[in-house]
């Protein structure tokens, strides 16, 4: 399985590799961060042994949580469907191994910062018996795109870069707009994380095969594979795989190592020199970005018939005794994974799921590995970074902002809670990369305040929308009542006038007729 990468292979020797930067777009700002990746990339990826218990959260994707289709006590096989998506946006959850469903109950999860969320608790029987493939095994090129998309949906595949947006829905959305490039995101710009690097080194052919499936699903003929220049082994491995596949639709692009060039919009800017519009998506400019891990997962499901039940994750940081990359079943607890690598270092202080720039701090290692977990970072007690001081308007933050915002202005307006100004300065376009925090000489936690302000703006917008609807309904009701009243008055007036027109003679006649009737009775 492990591909040995020949040493000394230079990327310019292979036809598919573009020279660094010469045909790339320009990224504004960004930072060159220390990589800290060497420690976790010395060894090949290790498999984490099957744990005694797997914890599978129902919500491992963007959208509504999946609904369980199994009950407590059921025996399930590896790869069996456990929960189905509910609603329009979602992805199914599969059993990562064979065993018995112990319970469906809340368990601490990393998505909610260690707060409990509904999970399926599976007790493994250790036999790891796979479910028999029920799907017909036609080659994917014989399937029409719609069929292929629904197959991808049933594999539980989500974006493995960390955003966990259901892949099938992203592809369906892309099919409705005209797309000409697929971009495989092999850029792992955050420090410490190296899971995609190791994946590309060891499974380059599978990654590219997944890209071919995705191109067929999208019905396009162009795929750029973007990899940062600090990953020469991955670049070489991909180049060899490309030569073997001999598919001219695939082009390898080497990009400079700058954080955050791995952001979706930033990558589109770099590779295609197209700017994604404010609040827009890469599909608005004809591009679709998928993580290399997602492409490998698509390959495993479409060609290998294995749904998304495991992933590679980086275990790193100064608080880890032996940093490395591991392949673990979805549902293995972080504690089990760290134990396999050799445990925590003595002075380990706190646990971060994700990278140091955008990751989340978690208070417990009982949380399970989920589809989104690309890195388990354990850091030492951080030395005091400095007291927050007033902004001196140096403008360093504006120089590094990859979205070309003005963080110092946003900072003032966020503090003043000035919603109008925050809109004017496009707070919504902030990607929360954390570059401004890092360069701020006054140690102002800018990104955190922007996150809070974003939430408040959303709240305010919701409130406004609610008020507008209530007002529309109130006005509609008033006009209806008005209309009814006018109608009733008009009817009354008509009755009166017709009686008047008939005159007293007619009334007397009616009275006589009534009297006759009563006499007849």
């Amino acid at each position, binding site marked *: 399985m492990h591909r040995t990468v020949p040493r000394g292979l230079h990327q310019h020797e292979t036809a598919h590799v573009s020279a660094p930067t010469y045909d790339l777009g320009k990224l504004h700002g960004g930072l060159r961060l220390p990589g800290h990746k060497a420690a976790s990339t010395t060894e090949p990826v290790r498999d984490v042994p099957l744990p005694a218990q797997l914890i599978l959260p129902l919500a491992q994707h963007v959208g509504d949580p999946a609904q369980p289709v199994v009950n407590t006590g059921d025996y399930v096989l590896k790869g069996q469907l456990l929960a189905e998506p509910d609603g329009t946006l979602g992805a199914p959850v599969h059993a990562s191994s064979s065993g018995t469903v112990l319970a469906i109950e809340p368990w601490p999860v990393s998505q909610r910062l260690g707060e409990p969320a509904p999970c399926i608790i599976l007790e493994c029987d250790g036999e790891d018996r796979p479910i028999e493939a029920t799907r017909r095994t036609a080659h994917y090129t014989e399937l029409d795109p719609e069929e292929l998309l629904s197959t991808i949906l049933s594999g539980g595949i989500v974006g493995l870069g960390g955003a966990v947006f259901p892949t099938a829905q992203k592809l369906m959305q892309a099919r409705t707009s005209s797309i000409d490039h697929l971009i495989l995101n092999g850029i792992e710009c955050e420090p410490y994380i190296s899971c995609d690097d190791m994946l590309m080194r060891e499974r380059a052919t599978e990654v590219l095969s997944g890209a071919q499936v995705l191109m067929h699903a999208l019905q396009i003929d162009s795929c750029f594979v973007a990899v940062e220049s600090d990953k020469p082994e991955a670049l070489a491995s991909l180049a060899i795989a490309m030569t073997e596949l001999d598919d001219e639709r695939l082009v390898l692009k080497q990009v400079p190592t700058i954080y955050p060039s791995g952001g979706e919009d930033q990558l589109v800017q770099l590779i295609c020199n197209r700017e994604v519009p404010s609040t827009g998506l890469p599909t608005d400019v004809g591009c679709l970005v998928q993580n290399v891990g997602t492409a490998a997962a698509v390959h495993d499901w479409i060609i290998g018939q294995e749904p998304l039940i495991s992933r590679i994750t980086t275990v790193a940081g100064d608080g880890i005794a032996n940093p490395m990359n591991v392949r673990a079943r979805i549902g293995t607890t972080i504690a089990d994974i760290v134990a396999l690598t050799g445990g925590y270092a003595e002075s380990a202080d706190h646990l971060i799921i994700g990278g140091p720039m955008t990751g989340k701090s978690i208070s417990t290692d009982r949380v399970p590995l989920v589809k989104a977990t690309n890195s388990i970072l354990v850091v030492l007690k951080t030395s005091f970074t400095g007291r927050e001081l007033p902004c001196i308007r140096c403008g360093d933050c504006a120089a590094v902002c990859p979205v070309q915002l003005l963080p110092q202005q946003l900072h003032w307006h966020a503090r003043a809670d000035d919603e109008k100004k925050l809109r004017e300065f496009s707070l919504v376009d902030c990607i929360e990369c954390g570059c401004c925090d890092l360069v701020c000489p006054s140690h102002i936690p800018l990104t955190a305040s922007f996150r809070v302000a974003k939430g408040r703006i959303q709240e305010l917008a919701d409130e406004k929308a*609610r008020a507008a609807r209530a007002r529309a*309904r109130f006005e509609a009701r008033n006009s209806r009542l008005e209309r009814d009243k006018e109608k009733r008055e008009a009817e009354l007036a008509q009755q009166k006038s017709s009686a008047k027109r008939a005159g007293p003679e007619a009334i007397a006649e009616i009275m006589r007729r009534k009297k006759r009737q009563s006499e007849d009775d």
Partner: protein
Amino acid sequence: MFIAIATIALLALAAGLLLSLASRRLPGESGDLVEQVNELLPQTQCAQCGFPGCRPYAAAIVEDAAAINLCPPGGEATVRRLATLLGREALPLAKTLDPAVAVIDESLCIGCLHCRNVCPVDAIVGAQHFMHTIIESECTGCELCIAPCPVDCISMKPLT
């Protein structure tokens, strides 16, 4: 020296005359102001301010016939925004209210239509002698339906 003072004084006089003329001739802004104030109110139409709806209250505020702190659903935030818009002092709320929606106990409802007829946003559905229910997403929590109910089957459910 004298010429300079005279020129400035004349200019000031001319500008003053022009402004006073404009304020008298041109239509006032109060119509727009009512709309702006109304825009800031939560549109629950609950009448808890003592006026029969948000717009009448907005008109009263602009005419200075009502204080700006009478809107419980709007909360402190609304008072603050009104104070900024009108340049008045942000008084503390006269009465606070937590966001809630009305819920009908459907086992008790006798289908009398009383609540449906008072709901300012048509959030109650039902017909005579049939059970009524509240469309939760449309309910503004104005509490106007609680008093008319003859069997007291409507209660407020706080929104978390």
